[in-house]
């Protein structure tokens, strides 16, 4: 069997605090191909963020391993850029400085100062934020902050882009705009994306595959669903598509009907 680009192999995570042990994840197996967009969906507190943090290297595995591009992940790094739920921009830096901090750190040795400046602007342009690049995070809206967070992550040219409920705190309209932007960017750059969400429509619209997690504690992968819709996807057209309707229904059935019993 050919090795996948990103491979999560038998991952289990147990947190220990003093004498208290809580097993959050157990036996997680997942393979993600290059260029694939995979969503992780599950109820709140089941361990989605923990799984993403394991891939990011921010949380240690208790059992198993994560392998990205033939290398084992054991520390955080810019090849696995994370977009956090609450934007996590540095408030004392302007929008442009937030991105250039990452660019200068990642490409400090390989690009000239002018190239790094251009690369910063290019990524701000990708998320349509060049007009506000000299503003501070406190001066822009929540949706704009998330765009900058995405630009910062993209600017690191990560092997895999990790999104932790990136649009969870946004209103429906802003969220739809950002989803369209993410689809566009994915179409142009063909990045490998792992996205945590609790929004069924978002998962069905954006993903090539939806990974459904069982409820914690000791959460694992309950079911994986292929969403074989053609790209580019249009949110209006897709709403009538039987594949989309089926995918949505399957996820809802998994989350609410089967789990409630």
């Amino acid at each position, binding site marked *: 069997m050919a090795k996948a680009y990103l491979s999560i192999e038998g991952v289990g995570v147990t947190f220990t605090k003093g004498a208290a042990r809580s097993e959050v994840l157990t036996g997680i197996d997942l393979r993600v191909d290059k260029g694939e967009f995979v969503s992780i969906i599950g109820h709140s507190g089941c361990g989605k963020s923990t799984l993403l943090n394991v891939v990011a290297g*921010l949380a240690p595995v208790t059992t198993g391993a994560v392998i990205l591009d033939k290398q084992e992940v054991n520390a955080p790094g*810019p090849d696995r850029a994370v977009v956090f739920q*609450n934007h996590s921009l540095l408030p004392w830096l302007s929008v442009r400085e937030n991105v250039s901090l990452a660019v200068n750190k990642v490409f400090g040795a390989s690009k000239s100062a002018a190239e790094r400046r251009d690369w910063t602007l290019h990524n701000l342009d990708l998320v349509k934020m060049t007009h506000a690049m000299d503003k*501070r995070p406190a001066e822009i809206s929540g949706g704009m902050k998330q765009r900058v967070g995405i630009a910062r992550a993209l600017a690191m040219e990560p092997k895999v882009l990790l999104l932790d409920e990136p649009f969870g705190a946004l209103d429906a309209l802003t969220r739809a705009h950002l989803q369209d932007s993410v689809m566009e960017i994915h179409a142009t750059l063909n990045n490998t994306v792992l996205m945590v969400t609790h929004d069924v429509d978002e998962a069905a619209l954006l993903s090539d595959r939806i990974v459904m997690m069982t409820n914690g504690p000791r959460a694992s992968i309950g079911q994986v669903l292929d969403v074989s819709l053609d790209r580019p996807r249009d949110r209006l057209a897709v709403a009538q598509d039987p594949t989309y309707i089926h995918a949505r229904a399957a996820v809802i059935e998994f989350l609410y009907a089967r789990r409630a019993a």
Partner: protein
Amino acid sequence: MTFPKPSFSPAEPVVSPVIAPPAGETRTSGLAEVKRRAGAVAAAVIPPLLTLLAILGVWQVVTGDSYAGLPSPAHVWTDSKTLILDPFFDNGGVDKGLFWHVLTSLKRVGIGFSISAVCGVMLGVLIGSNRWAHRGLDPIFQVLRTVPPLAWLPISLAAFREAQPSALFVIFITSIWPIIINTAVGVRNIPADYVNVAKVLRLSPVEYFFQILLPATAPYIFTGLRIGIGMSWLAIVASEMLLGGVGVGFFIWDQYNASRISDIIVALAWVGLTGFFLDRLVALLGHVIARGGAAS
């Protein structure tokens, strides 16, 4: 939590060099701006002035014309006219205008406080970021910080055997605690998100210190520095009283021994105003440096 940024709104409207706005509009908005600013200044200055006048009035009525006990404002004026009007005279020795006394005290505070600012921030970062340093040092600091400044003086005199370093040490030891404690709280409160960003970017410890830790902690540090500089000013006056020589603290003690209460009242006004300006200076510095603040 947002920290106000320094505002640089110009008093006059900025004139655009390319397209001149309609002349009338600029003039009226400029005038309105000047009026608004004058109003704001008046609102800030007039109430305390009125209060001051009221206090002086009550004081004058209560103390009256008697020369015993606390002098009235009128007596202060007649007794200490030269001291009030000429802060810059210098007759050699300790017979100098109040400006020179305050300046000498300020120099001591400047040196002592600078040392405590540097050491305080470093120790604060240490106990804020290291669990064992926190467990070991925090209880000791919590005890030591309650020791009053004057209690340190005999100890520091015994250790240094000289007035000058002893005074500096008292300033240092008095002002360092709020700096340490506030810095440590700031470091412990750095949002986990910022730390994660630093980890993903693989910032080196030095980069982390300057790019994340210092800016994220700056508002806390400046709170500590503000409290610290206030305390060091309290300490200098107290410690100079015992040390002698030039300095506003000794000036007060000297005038007390000479029963010149009016001069002491004038010196107190200088001490109070200087302390007020020191506080404002550090606060202003904090606003300029903290820029966006720790969190949005």
